């Protein structure tokens, strides 16, 4: 499945941000993902309001030293991974 840049990612029911011993984590059934650096920047923007295109543009600005194309690929790959784990819906 290729992702529609206009769709808006939102954490799926049963998934939410949490904190564990001072670190941000993505909590989901039976597991938790530690969120560090870019993964935290991406997941905090998955609120059902920001489009994928907007998230990409913001992170390209935030990580301006990295190649914009690479930043985009990394974001799409991560969103796809979270979607396949059913942690994310696209609305």
């Amino acid at each position, binding site marked *: 499945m290729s992702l529609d840049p206009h769709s808006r990612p939102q954490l799926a*029911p*049963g998934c939410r941000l*949490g904190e564990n011993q001072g670190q941000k*984590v993505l*909590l989901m*059934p*039976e597991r*938790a993902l530690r969120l560090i650096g870019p993964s935290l920047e991406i997941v905090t923007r998955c609120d059902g309001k920001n489009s994928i295109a907007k998230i990409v543009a913001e992170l390209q600005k935030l990580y301006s030293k990295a190649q914009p194309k690479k930043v985009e690929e990394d974001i799409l790959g991560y969103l796809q991974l979270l979607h396949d784990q*059913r942690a994310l819906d696209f609305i």
Partner: protein
Amino acid sequence: MPPTPPNPLALIAELTHRCPLHCVYCSNPAELVNRTQELSTEIWSRVFREAAELGVMQLDLTGGEPLARPDLAALIESARAANLYVNLITSGLPLDEARLDELIAAGLDHFQLSFQGSRESSANEVSGTKAHAQKLRVLDWLRTRRVGVTLNFVLHRNNLDQLEEMLSIAEGSSTSRVEFAHVQYYGWAFANREQLLPTREQLMRSIDFFKCAEERLRGKIRIEYVVPDYHAKYPKPCMGGWGRQAVLITPRGEAMPCHAASVIPNLSFENVTEKSLQEIWGSSEAFQKFRGEDWMQEPCKSCDRRSQDFGGCRCQAMLLTGNAAATDPVCSLSPQRTRVDAIIAAIPSASATTIQPSSPASLWLYRPNPA
């Protein structure tokens, strides 16, 4: 000296042993705790706070049937206040829509609904009560509510021909996650093993099915599956290692490294009514007993796999060899693997089991409901 333990990640809270179902594979121990011995709301709330301080992220509220606790919503609220992710493991009864809303409003993150099969008659036979229709009602209520939902199908020889139908139930619902869990042979399942254990052929067919389903439903429904380890080449890393990731609290407050640990003789469990979870986790005899590698015997002691599977399951070693420190006998490297092979060899052939009607109810040993 065993090494300093890492922090636990999961707390399994057996809130009660009371349950309207009498499943023939229940993981509860043979000796069930009575209602009058159950921990209070206040003690559970303290244990939740202590667990979170220790690093626990995930809380499983289980039983018995946790819905049997009238204070369940209050317990969910205190667990969320302690910063835990709250998972309810339930049969779905007794429950109505108003109570479901109350639990979700209290902060329930995730609802794991168990199924005994896809067909009313065989599911009800396994649970020893009429539960299946209610589960389908609950599934329908969940469709319009925002909470994580997992369906859990417990698999054994007599319902492995229903996998397609089970998956249809899931696909027709709002769930995003399905667990297909082959029965593990402890507790009541150990007592009923002869009638539950699938053949190798059935198991392999089920694994093919899971893999196809996983592929077909990617992005829609996440499929997870647990296989019965009697058929495996290497043992499972039980509980992620003894006293490494999880702690279980029984309805009366004993802290145990797993569901079945009470089968190990001379192992005493400290109680959260007397000590903090920190103290128990860090230094109690039960948690220290099989931590690290000092306790291991050959062939585990010098095995390359010892840091992956931690020697397998201590309770299974106890149940099948009489020695809790032995290599888990499901391991192909265990000198006692022949015991498991003999159990497998005694399973009726696949062709015989698929055409057989389900076993007569009189052959089952049903789990009773405690007082």
